[in-house]
């Protein structure tokens, strides 16, 4: 094999194995009146083709800012100061606003917690879906409306032809979220970003929406990045999980490993602080203190002031490093914790 052919083979192999979404070392700053605030630092997330990756964290951890960065929807006060984002063949972080606009919808789409704020109250839901079809696929109105009804059926809206003429306020929260998913699916995007998609919904309706998203992945092979504060949603949906704390990813692992052998102290404590409907514990293990604000992220490991295993070395910055074949963590102790957990199981 010549050197050139070897290079080519490597390139092709790489392209196939390449994740659909690659966030590499993303750093984002917000300008406030007095100073710049770094809300994200060195965020690394990969989402493979057809994979569902969960991004979990508490308020202020930076999960929504991460999503907005991928979608090119950061507010004017925010700036990407480091790292890069790639979706498919496109370097998102290098695109102009106009280029990003055409990427949204076609290559990537997003749904939010409260669909009412993203839907136009004076247009029928059918028309709002059709509008996306017309804009991105250049279809005529009649054809686009027919496609809208088809999409509404695909996301499980009963009596779709009639409901297409409804206005958003005539639908329940669960049905509105289905409409948002239909809009997102209109152009069969490669990547769907779902930011707390079921947080505002009742639990029986939440189960239906989660089922729907998984079935759309199975049918269309779309990749999903689901952002949530709810580890239950993560366990239910995700193939792989990234845990975020104070603007950084602190642990990444396949879903089973996150729940059975959490290697970062934060992940472990977070799991223990959740009251379960399956079994009762005498007392919850609360994490002391409070989640830090981006204005005052601690030095060194950002979790160290709340960590029961804190040592002197934790005051130094931690690197996000491999602790197993498919796992990474940002804690110098993580390898040792993992070895202990795997030894005992």
């Amino acid at each position: 094999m010549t050197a050139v052919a070897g290079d080519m083979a490597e390139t092709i192999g790489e392209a196939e194995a390449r994740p659909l979404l690659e966030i590499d070392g993303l750093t984002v700053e917000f300008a406030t009146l007095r100073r710049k605030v770094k809300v994200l630092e060195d965020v690394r997330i990969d989402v493979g083709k057809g994979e569902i990756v969960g991004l979990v964290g508490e308020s202020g951890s930076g999960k929504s800012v991460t999503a907005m960065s991928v979608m090119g929807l950061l507010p004017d006060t925010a700036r990407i100061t480091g790292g890069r984002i790639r979706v498919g063949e496109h370097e998102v972080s290098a695109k102009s606003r106009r280029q990003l606009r055409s990427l949204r919808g076609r290559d990537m789409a997003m749904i939010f917690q409260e669909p009412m704020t993203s839907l136009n109250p004076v247009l029928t839901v059918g028309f709002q879906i059709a509008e996306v079809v017309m804009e991105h696929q250049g279809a005529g109105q009649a054809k686009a409306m027919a496609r809208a009804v088809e999409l509404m059926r695909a996301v499980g809206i009963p009596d779709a032809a009639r409901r297409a003429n409804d206005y958003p306020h005539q639908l329940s929260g669960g049905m509105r979220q289905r409409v948002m998913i239909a809009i997102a699916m209109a152009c069969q995007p490669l990547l769907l970003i779902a930011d707390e998609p079921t947080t505002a919904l009742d639990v029986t309706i939440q189960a239906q929406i989660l089922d729907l998203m998984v079935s759309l992945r199975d049918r269309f092979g779309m990749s999903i990045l689901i952002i949530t504060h709810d580890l239950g949603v993560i366990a239910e949906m995700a193939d792989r999980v990234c845990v975020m704390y104070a603007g950084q990813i602190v642990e990444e692992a396949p879903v089973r490993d996150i729940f059975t052998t959490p290697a970062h102290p934060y992940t472990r404590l977070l799991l223990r602080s959740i009251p379960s409907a399956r079994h009762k514990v005498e007392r919850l293990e609360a994490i002391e203190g409070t989640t830090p604000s981006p204005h005052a992220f601690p030095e060194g490991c950002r979790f160290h002031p709340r960590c029961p295993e804190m040592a002197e070395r934790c005051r130094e910055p931690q690197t996000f490093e491999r602790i197993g074949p498919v796992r990474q963590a940002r804690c110098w102790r993580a390898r040792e914790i993992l070895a202990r957990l795997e030894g005992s199981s």
Partner: protein
Amino acid sequence: MTAGAGERPILAVEGLGKDFVVERSLLGSPRAILSAVKDVSLTMMPGETLGVVGESGCGKTTLGRLILRLLEPTAGRIHFDGRDITGLSRRGMRALRRQIQVVFQDPFSSLNPRLTVRSIIGEPLKNFGFTEKEITRRVGEVMEVVGLQPDTMSRNPHAFSGGQRQRIGIARALALKPRLIVCDEAVSALDVSIQAQILNLLADIQREFDLSLFFISHNLGVIRHVSHRIVVMYLGRVVEIGPEDALFRQPLHPYTRALIAAVPEAEIVEGRQRVPLQGEIPSPISPPPGCPFHTRCPIARDRCAREVPDFVEHQPGRWVACFYPGEETPVVTVDRQREAASL
């Protein structure tokens, strides 16, 4: 639901109902009525936590407000410590306020942000004529109980984090040494790491002061954790009441069963089973005839669409409103992890 021998319930509610007129005709006669709470009966013992759970529109918040007497019931009676408080005058209610307090989801959304923590916690004391000196002493005491530094009492609430603000809300509720606290989604706005702190705090306070907690939440994990007994509501009605352990292990009402099975658990569960529910929660303005749940129920029969099932004691201490209590429901097995692995 009868009390143990010799012990008197702190709270007993009989046939409680609340209708709201949501639409009137031109002449003012009601055109559409929403029965937010319908025919609710329950009791609570001193020192008990009664959890109330249900989805949106089930009437749990309205029920809490009726017990607090912030709303007037349109039917039924409320007894507090053996005394009928349903028709109590304004003056009679004032005395009762010392005994029944409330903690809301966010106690500060309705408060003046310029007030100090001392005036927020001390306000109920002021209303009952405590002197400034007494107020300062008592505010310091309850702040310590809830884990706040008493020397921060002259600060404004915005200087505190969400978890600390909920501690302030709890301190305010404790100031008058009440016997019953209604907690309405008291931990729902908090991050899970903070939520656990507040749940532990409530458990400690309850033990220390022999408090009764009427704990309203949509979160089944939280409800299971805090409650001794649990009330499940659907479309304004109570569908099941039972002890925490029995109700979660062996739910009698198909709705309770479906609700528990729908909770996404933060753990890997092999062969997880769900109860498939059709459709959505009907509007409380036009609830279905018969059993309110029959339109979504996987085991509904013809009879369920015609008759409303009575609320009966099916087993000792276990009440249910269903013609077929405890009957097995169809289930679907969700095994996403295996699906994902085979991709």
